[in-house]
């Protein structure tokens, strides 16, 4: 019996995520911490295994060290397999042509040999910067039922935001007749989620053709999808209804974290049917001595101070007399006594010394002009000295 896989997933994880500024200066966006004990990539990887897709290629390019180490052999996601499993695919040197991944389509094209090893009928293309839970298998079933060559997952977005996305114009059966990448005047509110299922043979054909086209940007949204549509291939939309968030900006990353809070949160993590797996840190349970309200706290943290409306990652120490409000603490952070953190995102391994003040009140600063909409950001590994102030909306990536 020849061993093969019905569907292979390819996860695009090479992006820099430049709009996350200091948070991605040393690590790729999919490796950014989220929701106190996760990293963004946990969501697509967990979705894969929960959808019974056990072969995943992770395409990395930008600052891959943390991501590579985190994904490792894939064991936390049950993706350590003898046949299949998770594989990190970085750009490589070849005999004839050596290059970085030039675009999303080129990244997949350079790894066609990997996909062909599993001889799949279908290829699922994912991106590593969205927070959501989705059963890809249902999408695959829809792809088979319609007999499509390409199926694009989409969801309704407010019309005024539609111009940020790839917009699908479909007939009543979901068949796509027009695809517009970031249109100025969107005709519909159905946005592409950047999740595609291709019938493998069609994908190979269009990737190979696109590679020979010097004018192409080698991008799925800009080149491959419009070309397929123009050639009259069957393309269908797949409607997703559920929580989905692109966490490409500081404000959306903050919002997505806050969406976890509350008794009926916008996004529920403790769902035993669709567990989100992660490489859990080895730490004792959290020790709580202070006051914690409407917040989530991960293992290994020691909370002596006051935590309100916040997401606290693993191994954080918040000393007695310190206050954290409306903020995201990613992990391994020390907040010394008397320090105040408000409306901020603090990256891993940061120390905030005695009586330092970070950020401003959310009620005052939210929506402020600037890169971060008023959210103060402290980059990975820095120390903020005693009594110092970091104003609202400021991004700090050096010790101060």
């Amino acid at each position, binding site marked *: 019996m020849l061993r093969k896989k019905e569907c292979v997933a390819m996860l695009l994880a090479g992006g820099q995520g430049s709009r996350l500024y200091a948070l991605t200066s040393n690590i790729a966006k999919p490796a950014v911490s989220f*929701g*106190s*004990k996760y990293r963004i990539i946990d969501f697509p990887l967990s979705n894969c295994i929960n959808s019974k897709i056990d072969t995943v290629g992770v395409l990395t390019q930008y600052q891959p060290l943390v991501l590579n180490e985190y994904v490792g052999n894939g*064991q*936390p996601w049950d993706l350590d397999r003898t046949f299949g499993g998770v594989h990190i695919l970085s750009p490589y040197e070849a005999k004839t042509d050596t290059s970085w991944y030039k675009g999303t389509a080129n990244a997949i094209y350079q790894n066609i040999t990997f996909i062909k090893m599993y001889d799949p009928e279908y290829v699922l293309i994912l991106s590593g910067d969205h927070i959501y839970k989705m059963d890809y298998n249902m999408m695959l079933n829809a792809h088979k039922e319609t007999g499509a060559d390409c199926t694009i997952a989409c969801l309704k977005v407010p019309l005024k935001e539609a111009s940020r996305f790839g917009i699908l114009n479909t007939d009543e059966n979901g068949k796509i007749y027009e695809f517009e990448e970031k249109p100025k005047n969107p005709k519909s509110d159905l946005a592409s989620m950047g999740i595609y299922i291709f019938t493998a043979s069609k994908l190979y054909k269009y990737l190979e053709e696109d590679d020979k086209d010097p004018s192409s940007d080698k991008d799925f949204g800009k080149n491959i999808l419009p070309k397929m549509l123009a050639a009259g291939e069957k393309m269908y939309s797949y409607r997703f209804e559920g929580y989905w968030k692109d966490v490409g900006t500081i404000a959306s990353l903050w919002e997505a974290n806050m969406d976890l*809070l*509350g*008794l009926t949160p916008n996004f529920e*993590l*403790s769902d035993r049917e669709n*567990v*989100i*797996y*992660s490489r*859990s*840190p*080895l*730490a*004792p*349970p*959290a*020790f*709580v*001595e202070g*006051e*914690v*309200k*409407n*917040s*989530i*706290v*991960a*293992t*290994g943290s*020691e909370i002596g101070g006051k*935590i309100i409306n916040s997401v606290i990652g693993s191994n954080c120490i918040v000393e007695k007399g310190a206050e954290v409000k409306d903020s995201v603490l990613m992990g391994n952070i020390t907040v010394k006594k008397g320090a105040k953190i408000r409306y901020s995102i603090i990256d891993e391994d940061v120390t905030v010394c005695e009586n330092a003040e970070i950020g401003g009140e959310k009620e005052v600063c939210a929506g402020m002009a600037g890169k971060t909409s008023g959210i103060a950001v402290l980059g990975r590994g820095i120390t903020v000295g005693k009594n110092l102030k970091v104003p609202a909306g400021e991004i700090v990536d050096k010790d101060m």
Partner: protein
Amino acid sequence: MATTVGVIFSSINEEDIPELTKVRSTGAVPFGGRYRLVDFTLSNMVNSGITSVGMITKNNYHSLMEHLGSGKNWDLARKEGGLNLLPPYSGETETLYKNRLEALKGSMAFLRKAKEDFVVLADSDAIYKFDYSKVIEAHIKNNADITMVYHEHKVEGSHYYLTFETDKNDKITDIQINPQSDGIKKCYINVMVARTSFLLRLIQNAIQHGYTSFGRDILSPGVKTLNLYAYKFDGYYANISSLYSYFNANMDLLKSGVRNELFGDRSIYTKVNDSAPTKFSETASVKNSLIADGCLIEGTVENSVLFRGVKIGKGAVVKNCILMTDDIIGENCKLSYVISDKNSVIRDKSVLAGCEKYPYFINKGSLI
């Protein structure tokens, strides 16, 4: 460097905590919010550079096996060595082992195959952090036959205790079994080091003589015939020999000194679960408590240890309690000095109270 193999008794002293060992072996008793008792001894072995461990089991070892799996969480899923479960072996004339010596007899095949020079024997009913390689060093230096590790503390009544006297060079001069006198003693903590070949000869000899007790038939007379040495462990040590000591050892984790000693360098390994982080609601109030992942807290919790997935309803007040995995405490309940085993449900408005010496115990899967 001397190579060492470890042997852990995962089922010994089960009768001391019948409430907790009814459904599992001693080593699998949940502890400290996310651990099982065996994690401490097993992690100590791994952190002492031991890469081959035999785990002697007896009955009810299903939850232990489920916890240990292939051993990968302790880095013991190896081609060479790694974790070996040693289920009880009974031949035609034998029944399930009744004592330590018979248990060891069952592990002889494992020890014979071991290439390591030294063996560490340890129980799984104690909470401590200890580098066994220091004992091996002392053992070699003293040219000892057996080195026994002790901790100085007060002798308690119920437990089977072995205490000893030593000379100024740590050579054991007298061994007492279950001493009647109270007071601080050098109490053997059931951690022993020997050369693997020597231990095998000792067991073989014991079988031939029909010995039944390691303490009475081998160690006690050994004071005169063997080179028995003592090694003092002076860190934090808690032996789980009653529900009361189980309760106290859990409560000790609320002291930052104990927590730092045991977990400061994050090297007590355990099975990893995928619970979501713990959620505190607007109405939550938590003081001096250890809270594992996956809990939902809407009520008041003080001086308590909460395992994974515990839910505390609105208006509930939980003080001085140990609540194990997936316990659900209803709204407006009042609990104090309660130890509740896994998967129990306490209905709304229940009032349950034990006292410090006799915590109120709730069986696994109860509905109250």
